[in-house]
């Protein structure tokens, strides 16, 4: 196996919104490489639809403090409040900056950036929905990804496309480098670097029904977890209420922001019962539970009564064309239905990891409850946990997260490498990756990665998704013990060097299984219900015992241990979460 060597001041892993925004900040400041296993424009930021909230107050009164309150309450008070303040305050600058970069926002009649409603975003601490989401039709994420990539092209950022980072090297207690697998050649590349920022996205492919891309397998957090970096709040995984039935393809919350209504088999607007004030615009965790409760109680639609309708038929057709064109096309393409005249079958779909690599507000990875920084290690975007989303992220706050904390992480990393020197890179830095790859090539095992992944997705959906119990989670632990063992026996057909996606998928599966274990162990310990983590056997939020972040660590012997750290901030006192 050929091994190449590179040396940079800083490396960014992942080229979605967070990675690209960090690259804009660091380019020109240091010798920078951006490594992505896709082409940058294939990143899943491009699938985000509805908008990006910022209290511009272009169309009605608003303030970033209200936005902060909504974010904290939406996250069921597990949000670190000072981090949420930073995000919501800097949101305004972030949107203006994207406009200056050329992002084609929809406009008001006065030519300003237009804004619309989104779930959980309210005026004056919950009085009524507020127009806060800046948007570009229902392809806001696409526009953000394109715009940030354009700015990287302008700055001549150095990309390593279709290189998959598979390991990180630490020495002297700090970052020394990383190891990447080049898909086009099968070669390994060792990057000596003073700092690495992970912006590698989520891991929603551990669930069967998912809005996530096939490539969202948690490589970044997975490889750090294996190197002993703790993961924070992994039990909090968001299910978006409106995924296309069975396919899981996202239908933006903007559909409800524009006036869409959820209806059960009786044609009832059932959200009126669950969230009397904001109704269909309640936060996602509540709406997803409401949908599944309707289904469980026999008010689902269809022969199996296993979905409900998203109803847009009362909206003016021109509004659907202008504001929701892409999702309308998805419905036509994949369901053969016309959203202007027909209800759309939907069900909750695995969407977003609130948890991930623990960081502070400058993107520095922190490894314990005291906030100790791991020198040279950074993370931003969905793979990170700042935590601004707490137990449940509000819609649009992910696009905000990637630009605000991508920028802050990129800036602090560029600052760091100006004074830091290279940690000595061990000569055997690539040995572990090479052995892992060679072992799979040499394996005579008959287990198929696709089969194991499919079982993982089925069981996670069944036992560890929207509703959980001690019983379901302990069953999942047993399943994972079996899957972990079988992953070791995966064999592949393709023994070639060039574009061997057979081995890529086998390697990705390992990360998914490890992270699923982190999710399940964290979820099993948390004997309360908060945000997206709902325990049927512990249906009450328990602030006395559980107002704290989970830190899950994989020990060198493979056992998984739990620790906790306090939630930051007392600006907002926890109260019952009603909408």
């Amino acid at each position, binding site marked *: 196996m050929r091994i190449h060597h590179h040396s940079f001041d800083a490396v960014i892993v992942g080229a979605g919104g967070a990675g690209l925004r960090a690259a804009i900040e660091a380019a020109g400041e240091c010798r920078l490489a951006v490594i992505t296993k896709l082409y940058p424009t294939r990143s899943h930021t491009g*699938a985000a639809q509805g908008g990006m909230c910022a209290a511009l107050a272009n169309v009605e009164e608003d303030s970033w403090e209200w936005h902060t309150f909504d974010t904290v309450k939406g996250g069921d008070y597990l949000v670190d409040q000072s981090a949420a303040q930073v995000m919501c305050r800097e949101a305004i600058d972030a949107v203006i900056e994207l406009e*200056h970069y050329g992002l084609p926002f929809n406009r008001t009649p006065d030519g300003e950036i237009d804004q619309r409603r989104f779930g959980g975003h309210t005026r004056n601490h919950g009085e009524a929905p507020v127009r806060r989401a800046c948007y570009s039709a229902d*392809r806001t994420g*696409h526009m953000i990804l394109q715009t940030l990539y354009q*700015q990287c092209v302008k700055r001549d950022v150095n990309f390593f496309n279709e290189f998959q980072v598979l390991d990180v090297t630490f020495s002297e207690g700090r970052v020394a480098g990383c190891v990447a697998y080049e898909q086009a050649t099968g070669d390994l590349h060792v990057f000596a670097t003073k700092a690495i920022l992970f912006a590698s996205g989520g891991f929603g492919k551990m669930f069967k029904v998912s809005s996530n891309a096939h*490539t969202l397998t948690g490589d970044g957090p997975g490889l750090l977890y294996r190197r002993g970096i703790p993961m924070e709040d992994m039990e909090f995984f968001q299910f978006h209420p409106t995924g296309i039935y069975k396919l899981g393809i996202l239908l933006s919350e903007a559909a409800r922001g524009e006036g869409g209504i959820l209806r059960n088999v009786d044609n009832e607007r059932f959200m009126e019962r669950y969230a009397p004030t904001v109704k269909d615009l309640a936060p996602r965790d509540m709406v997803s539970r409401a949908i599944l409760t309707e289904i469980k109680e026999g008010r689902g639609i269809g022969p199996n009564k296993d979905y409900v309708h998203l109803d847009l038929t009362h909206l003016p057709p021109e509004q659907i064309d202008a504001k929701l064109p892409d999702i309308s096309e998805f419905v036509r393409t994949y369901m053969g*239905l016309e959203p202007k*005249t*027909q*209800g759309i079958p939907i069900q909750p779909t695995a969407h977003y990891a609130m948890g991930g690599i623990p960081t502070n507000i400058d993107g520095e990875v922190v490894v314990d409850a005291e906030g100790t920084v791991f020198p040279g290690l950074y993370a931003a975007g969905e793979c990170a946990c700042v935590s601004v989303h707490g137990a449940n992220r509000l819609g649009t706050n992910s696009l905000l997260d990637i630009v605000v904390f991508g920028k802050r992480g990129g800036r602090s990393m560029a600052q760091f490498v100006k004074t830091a020197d290279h940690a000595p890179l061990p000569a055997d830095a690539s040995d572990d990756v090479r052995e892992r790859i060679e072992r799979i090539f040499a394996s005579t095992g008959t287990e198929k990665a696709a089969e194991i992944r499919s079982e993982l997705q089925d069981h996670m959906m069944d036992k560890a998704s929207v509703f959980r119990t001690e019983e379901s989670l302990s069953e999942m632990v047993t399943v994972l013990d079996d899957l972990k063992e079988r992953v070791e026996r995966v064999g592949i057909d393709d023994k070639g060097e060039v574009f061997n996606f057979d081995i890529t998928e086998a390697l990705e599966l390992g990360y998914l299984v490890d992270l699923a274990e982190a999710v399940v162990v964290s979820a099993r310990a948390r004997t309360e219900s908060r945000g997206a983590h709902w325990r049927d056997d512990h249906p009450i939020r328990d602030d006395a015992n559980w107002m704290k972040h989970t830190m899950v660590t994989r020990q060198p012997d493979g056992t998984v241990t739990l620790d906790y750290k306090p939630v930051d901030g007392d600006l907002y006192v926890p109260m019952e979460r009603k909408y």
Partner: protein
Amino acid sequence: MAATMERSEGGQSEPTGEEGPTPVERMTVSLKVKRFNPETDDKPHWQEFVVDGVEGTDRVLDVLHQAKWYQDGTLTFRRSCAHGVCGSDAMVINGENGLACQLLIQEVGTSITLEAIRGLPVIKDLVVDMEPFFAQYRSVLPYLITSDEPGYKERHQTAEDRERFDDTTKCILCAACTTSCPVYWGNSSYVGPAAIVQAHRFIFDSRDEGSADRLDILNEKSGVWRCRTAFNCSNACPRGIKVTHAIEEVKRAILYDRV
């Protein structure tokens, strides 16, 4: 496999809550893939995969995955989002360019041929070298060029000015248009439809001041005048962009020195 919804084209029924999945018909699909492995093959060859249990609402990508995952792991193609927004899986499907994740079996039939997109070097099976394509994209200065200092607030833009370039903002750089173009097949120095679409997105943006430079680039012999208005590109675009129309608008902007 994937969805089980009946596909009722343009149905007008009210949402009574009673329509929905009907008993699913399963079918067998023949997938003929033009394969090439640079490590073992001198030239490409066709291989047929027979996939059972396919539903009409399954995507071509789903069937490809079944073949790769359960029959032959060496079958190689790019993909990511699986719903037509990332642009990874452009390929020639029954002779026409499209995204494998956007076409359903009931549209393309149960006998399917798949080839790599044309005009870019094939590396392995359905994977082509995308570098020339992205180099052409970069050559048209695909970013907002301004000289003003907008200050703290956003620049203003009327809804009409915003609408002017809306169509070309949809591009996902999948290369389906460029690799459907007969001119591009014969002359890979042609900048190609996708790069022109990307240039159009800025040329007709009222905020941009870089049009003169872009129009100069596109007025060169590798630029818009290579276009013979075959309309293949417009038909191939999975985002429904009126690509040929955009190219015509750029030609007119060069001829009449205005946007």
